[in-house]
């Protein structure tokens, strides 16, 4: 159906002007950060925002709000969006499954489950410990979903992946509910789930920054390997790739990124699912472009979602979680991905010949 079109797109040079595209994306990102600094409960105009940086006065409430509340929140949005989107791109490349993403594959559920458990069991745990627990929980969720979903005869079909993810989420949710009811905790945990990047401090951002930096740099470093992995295990091995080693490295990067992002902003869904699809549509299949593109696009999406959520607070008379905004976009996108083909048992993200894929990423097959 669409294979000819994909073939053409895959065999053409992926991006005509990557530099121009990157500059445009960075410009949009800066605009997003600016909007994020301007929007909020307290009305602060543009000149006040500017003077908060040029002539900072720690006595002025407006300046403190801009520098110590809105700026860390914007930076956190950028980092979390980039981390989730890049994690999604890596997962879709390694599993060669269009529905693979931190939310569907149980990583965010696992991470938030482990954090909830740690908050109950170890009330004295500090933020670094909680982040470690969150990474471990992401690992638990991913291992459960991936391990169980790949047990079947026909491998990891999208339906099986989604069903397993749902079942693992429901299972961990049931255990979490039991713990919650047994310890008589209620809205504390709800607020933790729903808060997004609200109330993030420089301290939290500083903790996540090195984690995200290492993860994102690692993702860029393994980008060529990811391109080769999308060709399938046999071809990748034939091209001299040590697939097991590469997959382990990719999994470690994904866990660090998702675990850190969840411990900073709670479970924010669908960014890791949507962004890689959009970016692959724009720049093609070469992961040296897909990874940085996903980082930029994910940051932008998270910023826009957060600003939208803040803007929606007034008409809704209650704070709107950023996860609701991303779900509003993500559910139709998921439906589109799930329904676009009559058979869903296709392991490839795109129906395209291996030769065309190889050419798209600069490998002659």
């Amino acid at each position, binding site marked *: 159906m669409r294979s000819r079109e994909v073939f053409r797109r895959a065999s053409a040079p992926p991006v005509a002007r990557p530099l121009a595209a990157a500059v445009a994306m960075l410009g949009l990102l800066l605009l997003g950060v600016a909007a994020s600094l301007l929007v909020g409960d307290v009305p602060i105009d543009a000149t006040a925002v500017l003077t908060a940086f040029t002539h900072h006065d720690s006595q002025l409430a407006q300046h403190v709000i801009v520098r110590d509340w809105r700026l860390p929140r914007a930076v956190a949005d950028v980092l979390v969006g980039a981390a989730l989107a890049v994690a999604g791109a890596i997962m879709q490349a390694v599993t060669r499954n269009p529905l693979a993403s931190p939310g569907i594959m149980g990583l965010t559920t696992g991470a938030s489950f482990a954090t909830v458990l740690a908050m109950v069991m170890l009330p004295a745990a500090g933020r670094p410990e909680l982040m470690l627990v969150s990474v471990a929980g992401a690992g638990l969720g991913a291992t*459960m979903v991936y391990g169980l979903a790949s047990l079947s005869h026909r491998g990891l079909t999208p*339906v099986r992946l989604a069903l397993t993810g749902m079942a693992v989420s429901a299972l961990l949710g049931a255990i979490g509910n039991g713990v919650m009811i047994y310890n008589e905790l209620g809205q504390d945990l*709800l607020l933790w789930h729903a808060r997004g990047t609200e109330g993030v401090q420089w301290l939290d951002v500083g903790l996540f920054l090195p984690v995200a930096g290492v993860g994102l740099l690692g993702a860029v470093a393994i980008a060529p390997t990811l391109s080769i992995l999308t060709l399938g295990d046999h071809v990748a091995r034939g091209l001299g790739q040590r697939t097991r080693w590469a997959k382990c490295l990719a999994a470690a990067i994904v866990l660090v990124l998702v675990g850190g992002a969840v411990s900073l902003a709670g479970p924010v869904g669908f960014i890791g699912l949507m962004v890689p699809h959009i970016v692959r549509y724009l720049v093609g299949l070469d992961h040296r472009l897909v990874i940085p593109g996903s980082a930029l696009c994910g940051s932008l999406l998270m910023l826009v979602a957060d600003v939208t959520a803040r803007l929606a607070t007034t008409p809704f008379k209650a704070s709107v979680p950023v996860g609701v905004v991303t779900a509003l976009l993500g559910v139709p996108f998921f439906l589109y991905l799930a329904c676009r083909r009559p058979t869903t048992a296709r392991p490839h993200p795109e129906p395209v010949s291996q030769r065309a894929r190889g050419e798209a990423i600069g490998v002659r097959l």
Partner: protein
Amino acid sequence: MIRSHRLHPTAMLLVLTVTLMTVALVSLNLGSTRMSLPQVAATLLGQGEWTDNLVILQMRLPRLVLSLLIGAGLAVSGVILQGITRNDLASPDTLGVNAGAGLGMMFLLVMYPTAATALPWLLPVGAVAGAAVITLLVFALAYRQGSVLPSRLLLVGIAVAFGAQAAMLLFSLRMSFVMYNYVVTWMSGTLAAGDWQSLQLLLPCCLLLIPAALSRARVLNVFSLGDGVAASLGVSVERQRLLLLGVATLLTSVCVALGGHMGFLGLVSPHLARRLVGGNHRVLLPAAALCGAILLLAADSLGRHLFAPVEIPAGVLVGILGGIYFLYLLGTTRD
């Protein structure tokens, strides 16, 4: 798959019934007030003392009947959904019926915060309406070129459930602390609020819908041969599918409205029953109903007893056990 050591289906139904009655008697006996078996029997026959009457007739018996009906209802609707989609993994959970019921109830509570106290019957109605809307949406989205593909139905159900969860998060932030706790306890599937009043709605629905499902057992048998064969055998496929779907949705949403989210019960009981009595829906439907009732009753009794005085909702226990079984099924079945 005929196995020689399997009991005759009728005998198996009898065994299940006896098991159910045993579990029910034990459940009546469990709790902070201990009673001997003759005491329980005397109370049931109307010869009990005043305190025994209060504990058994006003507190334990309605809860027992509620868990029996909810377990049976969810199991029957699970059999129907698996039959009409011809997919072993279909269930009220995977089709978003639970999420829809929760959403409908939350919507009512946010819009009319006094509804819970002023009009107790309004909440179940809201849950039924929400479940019906979500199910219709799922089927409309999965409907393509005259047929509903099972795999697409599952994916659409999961996506819609995600959306409903996000909407519930939004609603729950606007609720007061007390109301939120009420909703969370309800959503995790507790039968603690069971009294004779809540049975007034459930009992007629179950008495109407479960026999309706039983009377369609032959249609479900024919469905398992495939749409084409069913049509050539004289079944008006789309109409029967719609009818059965309506029965399943109504049954599930009434059960969820009164009992909350009983994770995976509607999925596990049909599978258990199929292992016990085989695939003929005439025995499968009653066997599944019995299995569901036994499971829920056992989970409720255990949850009441295990960590007393804190009560673990039956839905949590069923969800944990059912989730593990579901994952086992996923690992072993072909789709």
